[in-house]
């Protein structure tokens, strides 16, 4: 997801301009010189200026190269296919999946699916990921629902406690 500075900078120019415009549109408080519109206007303008500077490469010389700590021993080279990069979206996607189905399926089943998928994606064999998918949701449910009284959705598989 490493994008050139020009792209992120121009994106920020757009975001800043939109924020400033949006702030400008807000109704002022009658009889007062400053209202809710001033702050977004200032922030948006500042953000747009920063984005412009980034797009033009100002301040780039300050960036320190990331210290890559080489790991000793031989490592398999990371796969470089295009689909491999999409794995990065798995965690947020799973969280949205939780939002979408937790109320119907219930916490235990949804959580078990999330644990299984995350653990498998990180390279666990089923001997590890299956027991983990059973035990971790029950443990979390115990702590949060029983001990801390968070109303977790029961769904299809309510816990006996």
């Amino acid at each position, binding site marked *: *997801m*490493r994008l050139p*500075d020009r792209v*992120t900078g121009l994106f*920020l120019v757009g*975001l800043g301009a939109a*924020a400033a415009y949006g*702030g400008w549109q*807000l109704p002022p408080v009658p009889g007062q*010189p*400053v*209202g*809710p*519109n*001033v*702050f*977004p206007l200032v*922030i*948006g303008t500042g*953000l747009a200026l*920063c*984005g412009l500077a*980034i797009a033009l490469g100002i*301040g780039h*010389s*300050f*960036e*320190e190269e990331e210290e890559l*700590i080489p*790991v000793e021993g031989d490592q398999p080279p990371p796969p470089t296919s295009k689909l491999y*990069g999409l*794995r*990065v*979206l*798995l*965690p*947020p*996607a799973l*969280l949205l999946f*939780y*939002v979408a189905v937790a109320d119907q399926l219930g*916490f235990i089943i949804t*959580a078990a699916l*999330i*644990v299984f998928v*995350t*653990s*498998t*994606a*990180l390279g*666990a064999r089923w001997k*590890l*990921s299956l027991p983990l*998918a059973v035990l*971790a949701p029950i443990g*979390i449910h115990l702590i*949060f629902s029983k001990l*801390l009284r*968070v109303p*977790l959705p029961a769904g299809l598989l309510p816990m006996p406690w």
Partner: protein
Amino acid sequence: MLNTLAQAFSLICTWEVIVAMLAASVYGLVIGSLPGLSATMATALLVPVTFYLSPIAAIATIVAASSMAIFSGDIPGALLRIPGTPASAAYADEAYAMTRKGEAELALGAGVWFSAVGGIAGTLSLMILAPPLAEIALSFSTFEYFWLALLGLMCATLVARSSPVKAIAGMFIGLLVSCIGIENPGGVPRFTFGVTNLLGGIEPIPALVGVFAVAQVMRAMLTPEPPPIPRRKFGSIMAGQWRLTKKYHWQMTRGNIIGIIIGVLPGAGADMAAWVSYAMSKRFSKEPEKFGTGHVEGLVEAGASNNASIASGWVPSLLFGIPGDTIAAIAIGVLYMKGLNPGPTLFTEKASSMYAIYLMFIIANIIMIPFGIVMIRLASYVLRAPRSSVMPVIMLCCAVGSFAIGNNMFGVVTVATFGVIGYVMEENGYPVAAMVLGIVMGTMIEQAFVTSLIKSDGSVLPFFERPIAAILAAMAIGALIWPVLVWVWRKLKRTPIPATSPR
């Protein structure tokens, strides 16, 4: 004074506080020692749990977990050359070199001993600095608060190890996020796009969990698993630490002082303290050539420094509600939740609670020594836990924790969104800490700014008329101009001697 102290003692001598503190210590030690799970993340994931505790117990968990996690990050740094938390990154190489020389005990012992000393020094600074500053702060008006908050944000951008322009952009993004909702001077829905859930604004805690925890799980998806730690038997861990303390007492003191100063600065935290102190130690050392070959001197100074910054980071948080670092930003959220609203009056009205916080810091740093020794001995087992079993549990905690904050599924959406934002920003060199501080301080800075503008009738002059406001303004503007000066200076220097390596 003695009376308050006795009250503070009775506040923390309850089973709830003691159990919460011990459990949070173990939790902090484990999370801190696992590579990739930072102290900030440990603290952020604790917040939902603190909802259900008494105020003092809630703060106890934060204090204990953050102090322990900062020390515990040294363990994989020394044994694997992979820092457990960013705060240990500055000297992970050095500690690992010591392990290869067969001095793992000395390196880890120095970690635990000087962390504890640093933590106590930081606590003393909190006790000494906060009350007189509170006296001054009582006379602050919105002008001072505005400049102080701005100074905090500028410091956060200044110390980021990245381009200052990108850091300022990150700060603006955070401020923009804080604009969302109806909590603004006019009370109109702002940037909500008709979404009811956005009316209340973005809660800082789910945003923090997303930026620090979800983004980390995302990163783990693409990076190879760290190698398992070799099993080893340790000799005596504390042997020789007293000798080191006597030999390097000056380095230790300097580390403590630097850590305290960096901690008090809003926005700069433990990782910055460690980097600055390690560099300082090398610069002023009598034997700089030994650095990098397994020399304990830098470890002493930086280890003393990062833990000192944790406690002193609470000074601006308690006084002004301006976080000293990202951990303190979380602590502020918890303070508000628990009715201990930050502000100078906290020290007069809730003095016993303040003393309880000091005491908890001192206790946490004392029990760090035995707990740390046990943790070092168990490290070979804890660090064998594969990432594929830790990360799924983190995911669940993110989902449940963010839901628990408002018993609202929208919290989970916020976490996921900020996970993506944090990941993309970090990948492209935008420091997320600046954005986080922007989110936390946004409402406050806007209120101070707009109220000041109304008071001054739209004129800018009164912003500089009060003496303290003028000083703070000069500092904030100086922090903004500083990178420009550095840049010009570098340009001038580079002209006569071409191809000098930067820094």
